[in-house]
């Protein structure tokens, strides 16, 4: 990245990522729009301000690594990567089409800029721990970021990885929790509750920050203070709303994988346009 983007410019990118994600899900007649919209501001902040990456050299050895553990938000990730020019925007039209490289879940072998094959939940953080360890073993200073869902934290593998990250003192590792409070079937707290989530991460040896996951300036502020504590991995709990940006999608469990009708898409795009920063 040449010049750091402003919070307003990042918010505009996030708005476009939201609109593109919804169009992709609508065209594919399949997808996970709630989780896409939830993560858009976090993705935009990372890709247009925080990560040290070069879309022209997606495999540059010294790049920061970002792993989307909540792989069902693939439309948002692909939209972000296209915004960042990792691949041509025309690819997006093929989302989930036969033989497309844009699977319903991210694929590192097919898509430039994707770092891990995710989708099954609870895989991202262990892989990120290994990547961060690998950087240290090689004496390199690049950083590893992983975005998990909150419902996803019900998978025990995350806590195996959390214990290891703290034990290994991986302070170049940051886990961001998209804390939208919803999972596929219901609210997380009505399913298997996660609170007190910040205390849990602290108890596992992480430095913790809690932030409004839709406040780009606040996200930038946290990410630019990393590592929050020397010798500790960081957990950023980003409080979000699933479906953020579209009134009739926001905070409703059924939009985990509902597909907007033509009319709903049109209305959603109008709402998003009106929210232009």
């Amino acid at each position, binding site marked *: 990245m040449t010049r750091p983007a402003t919070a307003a410019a990042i918010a505009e990118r996030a708005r476009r990522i939201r609109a593109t994600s919804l169009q992709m899900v609508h065209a594919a007649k399949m997808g996970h729009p709630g989780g896409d919209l939830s993560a858009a501001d976090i993705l935009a902040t990372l890709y247009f301000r925080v990560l040290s990456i070069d879309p022209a050299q997606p495999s540059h050895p010294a790049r920061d690594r970002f792993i989307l553990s909540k792989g069902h938000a693939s439309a948002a990730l692909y939209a972000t990567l296209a915004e960042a020019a990792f691949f041509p925007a025309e690819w997006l039209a093929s989302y989930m089409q036969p033989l497309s490289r844009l699977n319903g879940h991210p694929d590192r072998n097919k898509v430039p800029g994707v770092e*891990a094959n995710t989708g*099954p939940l609870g895989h991202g953080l*262990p892989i990120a721990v*290994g990547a961060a*360890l690998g*950087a240290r073993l090689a004496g390199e200073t690049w950083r590893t970021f992983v975005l998990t869902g909150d419902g996803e934290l019900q998978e025990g593998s995350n806590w195996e*990885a959390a214990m290891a990250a703290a034990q290994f003192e991986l302070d170049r590792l940051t886990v961001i929790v998209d804390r939208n409070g919803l999972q596929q079937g219901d609210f997380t707290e009505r399913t298997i509750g996660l609170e007190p989530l910040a205390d849990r991460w602290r108890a596992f040896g992480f430095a913790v920050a809690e932030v409004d996951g839709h406040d780009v300036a606040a996200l930038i502020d946290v990410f630019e203070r990393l590592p929050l504590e020397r010798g500790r991995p960081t957990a950023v709990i980003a409080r979000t709303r699933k479906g953020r940006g579209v009134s009739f999608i926001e905070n409703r469990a059924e939009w985990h994988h509902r597909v907007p009708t033509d009319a709903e898409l049109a209305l959603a795009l109008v709402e998003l346009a009106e929210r232009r920063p």
Partner: protein
Amino acid sequence: MTARHDCRRAFAETLVALAERDSRVVAVCNDSVGSSNLTAFRARFPDRLINVGIAEQNLVGVSAGLASAGRIPFACGASCFLTGRALEQIKADLAYSRHNVKLCGLSSGMAYGELGPTHHSIEDLAWTRAIAHMTVVVPSDPIETAAAVQAAAAFDGPVFLRLSRMPVPVVCDERHSFEIGRSILLRDGTDLTIVAAGVTVTEALEAAALLDREGISAAVLNLSTIRPIDRERVVDAARRGPIVTVEEHTVHGGLGSAVAEVVVESHPTRMRMLGVPGVFAPTGSPAFLLQHFGLDAAGIREAARSLVRA
């Protein structure tokens, strides 16, 4: 009697030698430094021995991450837990991701015989063999173990090394060059072929010697790579006569199934598949269990004799 060896020693020595030559080689384990024989590795390369504790899903994920950052991880643990508990990570994080991780399933098969069926690993070949991009190697003795570890390190991609702890005699010739995907004809014969891998190879050779005294000429094929299978050699065996397969594994989906898949498509012949017949094995020493399921020399001879004379 010929001296018997614990192949974990060859495994551990080779791993240290590899790590000396290649700084990318790291060992990852699940609180199994001792049982994986990694004590010497840890002493020599303390930073390159990563013990993730009792957490197999994380072990495989961490190994994938290490590979993504350019390391060559040897992910070690008891095969029953490593493969069973982390099977989805093996599929998604290693195989589908084509990460260069060497999965080392130790004490596989019925090596933990007395500990009971929870600790038997008689499904690991079926599980790993069913996953695309996986290479599955089952060395039979210390020579082949050392060669397989080196070949796995040189191979670019995920490999499952199925390693036992049952003491075995040397059956392979130092001069044989081990190659992933190539089987080794240990003994030629004209009446039938016994196909084995791992700890059953020595039993197959003994069975062939017993059969020889009865005037039955048995070839013995060491099928040390289960996937990709040496089709050419298997078809060649089928052309010559019936086949007995012997595996320290369930008969469903393992070595015998792999051979049968080739045989029925290419040159149908009569087969007997010896293994654990779709049950949980009882408790007992590894030697007892081999005998119990007819996977020892006497059992193999019996099966071969009935097949040839049928």
